[in-house]
């Protein structure tokens, strides 16, 4: 393929839309409801499609004040929210309906575009349900801007968190970020210093009972580095990286070997599974951890996330 015109190669598949450039190849799946493959320099970055994230593992304080019970619907939503509808826009034109066979028979293997956007519309299994949309806008250089929208709805419990979860096929060797030192939360970040920080591996803060941990608030850029893949034909151990950066506002993230559900499951650190993947959670909103007491005191009101208001956040992926 000749990329001299610096355009995206668009592959109108029967179950997915492929987007290709000189050193990247993305698969936006119609049947899996999300970005199924993010290959940069021949390295796959996704284990499963990214999904909206509504849950951070509950803390001891959450248990004490009953927030875990009040918010329980979001635990289910975190696991079972499904994609209901997909919008495809190529160079500003909505392609409707989705170009699956026979509609895509009109294309060739030489379709090009300057910008392609896909929006995945999710519906939560909460009562009442609400919707989340994730829009991936891919530029011709492969940069992806991700915009996430949560539709506020009366009658829903406050959210533990709202974000997007990326599960990567193998463990990271570490990550570098521009933001705040240490582990920070909305109500616990005054003592942090601003800077560029490197973290080796995927440390899980060793709280006696595994719980939410490893949050980094107010981040402007994050680079995750791995050195292994699951590709049987790729024996290289050379490190490779992917970068997530602020779009409109700084974001929060945690980069751990476990999902919130895995952390939630364990009563001791040694019960956690062997680390084998990287779970990168990018957050637009995080509930505070609280701290007045651990048997009833709520997190201070300004660190709650009401669910009756829209939430939006965005960031970029590049390399």
């Amino acid at each position: 393929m000749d990329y001299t015109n610096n355009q995206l190669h668009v592959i109108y598949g029967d179950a997915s839309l492929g987007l290709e450039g000189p050193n990247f190849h993305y698969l936006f799946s119609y049947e899996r409801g999300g970005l199924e493959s993010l290959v940069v320099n021949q390295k796959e970055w996704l284990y499963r499609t990214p999904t909206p994230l509504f849950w951070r593992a509950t803390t001891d304080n959450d248990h004490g004040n009953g927030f875990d019970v009040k918010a329980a619907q979001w635990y289910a939503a975190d696991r079972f929210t499904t994609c209901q509808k997909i919008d495809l826009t190529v160079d500003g034109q909505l392609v409707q309906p989705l170009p699956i066979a026979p509609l895509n028979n009109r294309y060739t293997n030489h379709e090009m575009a300057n910008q392609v956007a896909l929006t995945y519309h999710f519906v939560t299994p909460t009562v009442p349900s609400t919707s989340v949309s994730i829009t991936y806008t891919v530029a011709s250089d492969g940069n992806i801007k991700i915009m996430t929208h949560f539709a506020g709805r009366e009658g829903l419990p406050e959210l533990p968190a709202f974000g997007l979860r990326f599960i990567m096929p193998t463990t990271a060797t570490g990550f570098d970020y521009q933001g705040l030192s240490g582990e920070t939360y909305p109500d616990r970040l005054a003592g942090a210093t601003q800077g560029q920080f490197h973290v080796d591996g995927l440390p899980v803060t060793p709280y006696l009972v595994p719980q939410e941990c490893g949050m980094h608030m107010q981040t402007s850029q994050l680079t995750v580095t791995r050195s292994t893949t699951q590709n049987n034909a790729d024996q290289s151990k050379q490190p490779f990286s992917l970068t997530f950066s602020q779009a409109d506002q700084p974001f929060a993230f945690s980069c751990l070997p476990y999902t919130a559900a895995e952390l939630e499951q364990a009563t001791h650190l040694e019960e956690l599974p062997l680390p084998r993947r990287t779970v990168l959670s990018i957050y637009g909103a995080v509930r505070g951890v609280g701290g007045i007491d651990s048997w009833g005191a709520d997190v201070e009101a300004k660190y709650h996330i009401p669910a009756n208001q829209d939430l939006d956040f965005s960031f970029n992926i590049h390399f």
Partner: protein
Amino acid sequence: MQANLQWLDDPEVFRVNQLPAHSDHHYYRDLDEIRTGSSFIKSLNGPWRFHFASTPSERPLHFYSPDFDSADFDTIQVPGHIELAGYSQIQYINTLYPWEGKIYRRPPYTLNQDQLEVGLFSDAADNSVGSYLKHFDLDDSFKNQRVIIQFQGVEEALYVWLNGHFIGYAEDSFTPSEFDLTPYLQDQDNLLAVQVYKRSTAAFIEDQDMYRFSGIFRDVNLLALPAAHVVDLDIKPEVKDDFERGTLAVTADVSGTDAILELTVTDQNKQVVASQTQSGTGKVLFDSMPFDNLKLWSPTNPTLYQLLIKVYNNQHQLLEVVPYQFGFRRVELREDKVIYVNNQRLILNGVNRHEWNAHSGRVITMQDMQNDIQTMLDNNINAVRTCHYPDQLPWYELCDQAGLYVMAENNLESHGSWQKMGAVEPSYNVPGDNPHWLAAVVDRARSNYEWFKNHPSIIFWSLGNESFAGEDIAAMQTFYKEHDASRLVHYEGVVRTPELRDRISDVESRMYETPANIASYLENNPDKPFLNCEYMHDMGNSLGGMQSYNDLIDKYPMYQGGFIWDFIDQALLVHDPITQQDVLRYGGDFDERHSDYEFSGDGLLFADRTPKPAMQEVKYYYGLHK
């Protein structure tokens, strides 16, 4: 006198033949020994012969007799917890009594009972017994001297015998117990026998939120006393109104023969700034000594003066030297109802600290203590509450040197007697107003005072923790007020018994109060300054919202800060056979029920002493008002 097992059942018997509490000064044969260590002290730490019995009825009866055959005894390390040596089940429990749902028990003399219940502890299924034996010979320097044995901490009741003779009995697990061995001592092959009971009536007032252990868990020493010896040293430095001049009053309680006491005080430049000689025995009073150009002790400048007393006999032979580092500082609760130290408003950037080591429980080392001090200094912590018992003897001296304010708490908590499942229900509260429990708790107040009275770091005496309140606790305050004008008295139970408001605490002290409620108290013509004796419960991933407490400092002069709960997670390192790793275990992990599970982990440090991520927040906020 013979030992009586039923002392375990009687709250009015808590010390038998035990020597009176006294100051924690060190003493040496000569000046060189200050560097090299005192030859008057012989440590009995190390391996002891040991027998474990699950109940009192299974204990070896005459094990203290020199002709007892102890061939079937094991060996145990002293100091150490019997549970961690594998003999008895480990249990962590918070407020409820450890026998919850296992044994029905009520404290003697409550619920209108006017007599003891024999067997309440002396014949109880949950009262395990450790029988310890130690042989020792006297060093030459100990021969023909008075010799004292000092147990610095034994949980929770102990009986002592020497060479077959009963020596004494003690309770109060976290306070040193001393007995005079002299009458039965021999130069060679002494047999020391100690029987340690896991429970006694003291269990009702030692219901702290912690692992429940038993055994000899702090140092054991033999102390030789020279012919004349300073038994107690009472150092009373006073700061004048100008904060530049002061006076020093010293009283020495001398045992033995008439002695000549040469006292000198040197300053930080090793210049002698006071000296005086007195002689006598019994209470020896020094004339008040004036001081000019005082350098005050404070957290930012923990300036100490070196007092030295040389004790001579009438032939002017040196018998002992007693050094003590003391400091001048002035603690005042002024008319504006604000606490000042050295003319500056007190702001407590404090933390509660249990003694803890993940390997050995409450058996901690000097290195552990030094590490804890350094961690506090590194993170702008300026105050520590010894929750909820007196700490090891060296702790207070370390705090003097480091410049940490200390709230010195008595060994008292009767939480299970008045609060059940969160509800206040004091129907069988002890000590309450109960005359039968009065002497025990006042004795604890006295011991805490006598041992630690000379430490400038201590600015509050704390009557105890979560024991409700009544006349007995008021009597503890009376004791402190009668003995010590240089410090304030703290008790959190002041919030539960308004009728005792002026008799149990100089401060309004609350736990885990919300910033809004604190502001409300301070806005409504408060009668006492406010402090949080516990706040910012740092369980797991926590410590959010500290800003709101910090804001109170700037807004309300009568808000004096507080003590974060708490310093270090209580968790134990154990080997996990599944992963083959050493892992940290918490309440409930030893099959013990009832337990309060992970509630044992609320520290700013993980149990292995690494700081939790939240520490940077503490350092920041505590750095704003140093």
